[in-house]
């Protein structure tokens, strides 16, 4: 009896282990097309799953509403979405990398603009050209960023842009000429020297003059790239094959030194608190359009002006690009996913999504929608003007993941040294940027050359 009991217990444990193992494949099964019931006349239902970085409440609510609308109208294509934390870092990208190795990608994957080439070059995503043969209604920067080797690999409802916010109440206290700030135009924005003088004037015991994006992910290369382009040289060559002579060029060192100098002189914090501008700890900030809604909670008056330009060239440049939807190679039914994306990117949906996420729409016709009326008026019009006039997509290269990581690391090191020493060491900047360039070259030559 005792022996029987022992064996029965062991079998039970083994069965429970087997059950645990079996459940791990649930993600892949859930993506498959299912045939409901044995009756051949019944409609087969396609289940599609989307992965996207989680966002603010208004965006999450938009998705709930829109997916309910789609699922009610399309009983044969049922769509669900997983909102995945990004944590101002590479947490989302890491999850995708893990899914690639385990062959468990979702049907539709949101990828950041500069990563479109990376996923396309590695065969992770499928071309969308047949689902979007006419892209003339999309802004040029969107099409450029979502295209790899002549094919469209992703599509986005929104673009992005970054500008210079300033605290009007505090500027008045500091005696800043606010008329001058309001007089800047998209073709004649504030110059670096003027921006530095403004930051210096507003740096006091309780305030720093400005805020530089200090996340440890893609935020740094995204928000700072226009400074490099404006000063004459981009991070990477236009064909995406080399960084030597670009990210480590004399112009790039000069640009980096300008930014490091803001930290060294104490005009910007190297470890800023969360929402530093909103919390009244800095006078200005270089930040995206999404902060317009965040700043509705501000207890001070604020304004926005255009992204600063290099004194040397005076060329206005602004960031662009946003997370875009792509169909993965693990998609159970690419045509169903394509049909869903066509609906998702309709001008009406683009307009309402754009309003929910506080970013400019990627479709020109979406601006006729009442939901986009705010983009015709200040302050959102500043971002729309930048997008229409001087947006510069990030480099399109399959080695962007390596570049992004190494550049963010180098900039963190440079800023940390500037903060510690209270001065800028250009030879150290050169050394760090040389390191970024050589690591890019190695990655590109190892895997893509």
């Amino acid at each position, binding site marked *: 009896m005792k*022996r029987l009991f*022992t*064996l029965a217990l*062991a079998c039970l*444990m*083994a069965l429970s*282990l087997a059950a645990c193992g079996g459940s791990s494949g649930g993600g892949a099964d859930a993506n498959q097309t299912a045939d409901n019931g044995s009756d051949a006349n019944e409609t087969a239902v396609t289940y599609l799953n989307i992965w996207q970085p989680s966002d603010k409440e208004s965006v999450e609510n938009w998705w709930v509403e829109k997916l309910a609308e789609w699922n009610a109208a399309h009983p044969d294509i049922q769509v669900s979405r997983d909102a995945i934390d990004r944590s101002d*870092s*590479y947490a989302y*990208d*890491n999850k995708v*990398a*893990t899914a*690639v*190795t385990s*062959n468990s990608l979702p049907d539709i994957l949101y990828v950041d603009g500069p990563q479109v080439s*990376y*996923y396309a070059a*590695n*065969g*992770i995503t499928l071309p969308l050209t047949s689902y979007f043969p006419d892209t003339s209604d999309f802004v040029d920067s969107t099409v450029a960023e979502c295209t790899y080797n002549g094919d469209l690999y992703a599509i986005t409802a929104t673009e992005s842009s970054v500008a210079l916010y300033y605290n009007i109440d505090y500027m008045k206290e500091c005696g800043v000429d606010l008329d001058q700030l309001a007089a800047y135009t998209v073709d004649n924005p504030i110059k670096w020297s003027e921006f530095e003088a403004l930051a210096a004037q507003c740096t006091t015991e*309780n305030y720093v003059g400005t805020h530089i994006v200090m996340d*440890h992910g893609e935020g740094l290369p995204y928000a700072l790239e226009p400074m490099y382009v404006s000063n004459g040289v981009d991070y990477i060559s236009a064909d995406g094959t080399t960084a030597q002579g670009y990210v480590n060029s004399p112009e790039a060192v000069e640009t980096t030194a300008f930014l490091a100098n803001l930290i060294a002189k104490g005009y910007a*914090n*190297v*470890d800023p*608190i969360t929402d530093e501008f909103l919390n009244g*700890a800095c006078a200005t900030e270089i930040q995206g359009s999404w902060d317009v809604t965040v700043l509705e909670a501000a207890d001070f008056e604020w304004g926005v002006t255009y992204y600063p330009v290099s004194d040397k060239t005076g060329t206005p440049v602004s960031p662009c690009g946003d997370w875009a939807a792509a169909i993965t190679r693990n998609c159970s039914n690419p045509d169903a996913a394509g049909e869903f994306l066509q609906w998702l990117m309709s001008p009406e949906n683009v307009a309402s999504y754009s309003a929910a996420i506080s970013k400019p729409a990627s479709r020109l016709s979406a601006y006729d929608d009442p939901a986009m009326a705010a983009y015709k008026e200040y302050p959102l019009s500043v971002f729309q003007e930048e997008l229409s006039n001087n947006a510069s997509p990030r480099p399109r290269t399959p080695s962007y*993941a*390596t570049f992004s*990581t190494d550049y963010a*690391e180098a900039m*963190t*090191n440079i*800023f*940390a*040294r500037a*903060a*510690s020493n209270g001065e800028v060491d250009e030879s150290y900047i050169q050394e760090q940027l040389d390191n970024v360039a050589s690591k890019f070259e190695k*990655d590109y030559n*190892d*895997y893509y050359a």
Partner: protein
Amino acid sequence: MPASNLSARKRNERISAYVFIVPAVALLIAFLVVPMVYTVYYSVFRYQVMRPDNITFVGLKNYLELFQDSDFWQSLRNTLYFTVVVVPTQTVLALALALLVSKRFRGVSVFRTMYFSPQLTSMVVISVLWIVLYNSNPNTGLINSLLVNLGMQPVNFLTNPKTAMNAIIFMSAWQGAGYQMMIFLAGLQGIPGEQYEAASIDGASRVQQFLYVTLPNLRGTIKYVIMITMIQAMKLFTQPYVMTQGGPENKTRTMVYYIYTQGFQKGNFGYACSVAAVFFVIVVTMSLIMQRITAED
């Protein structure tokens, strides 16, 4: 009882024992042995994580690159520095706390709970809290606020290459000491009271009692605590990941963090496996050396 019945019973017990250990062994093989074998296997391939269908055999190339990789050596130095400093610091702190709370007095259980409570909180949460404590702005960083009130200059704890790792060491020792304290406490309670009485009758002072009664009796416990703290220290990842992302100037980038960035952020899976394989050998070697040093005569 006949001999044949006895041997049959022993055989049945042996079978039962094997049946019971099968699930544990199966899990160990699945989640420890197989990944280890795969790590060594992939370490001789060029393997981009996004291209699992395009893996190329490169022999020992990854290992040769690794030994010329300054980032690898920097990560190893950082890991060893953390280990060498945190192990004695945390062990001494834990022993001191255990001695404090081993006495019976009113409210002792409150102190035991307080000292142990950091162990019950996620390291991620603790790291986030300490980011706020360490913030360089005296208006927001509590430690710098204290320094400024004492007339000192604020310190960039987490962004200065000279202080970042030490700041992580301090926080880690504070967080981890509670667990080791409980182990020491169990060891202290196992020391017979008669030994202290005898020492006291012989005229031994408190310090002499600690040196000649407490420490010899805790020898096994100390060895165990040092060993587990060392292995935990070598695996340092969460604190630099959350607090410094390996910076500033890579001064807090540890071996595990380096493996993570190579394997997941950059997708160099083959290279990351070679770093992991070398690191495994280092940890095993250090554990054996430590075991030899602390071995009984």
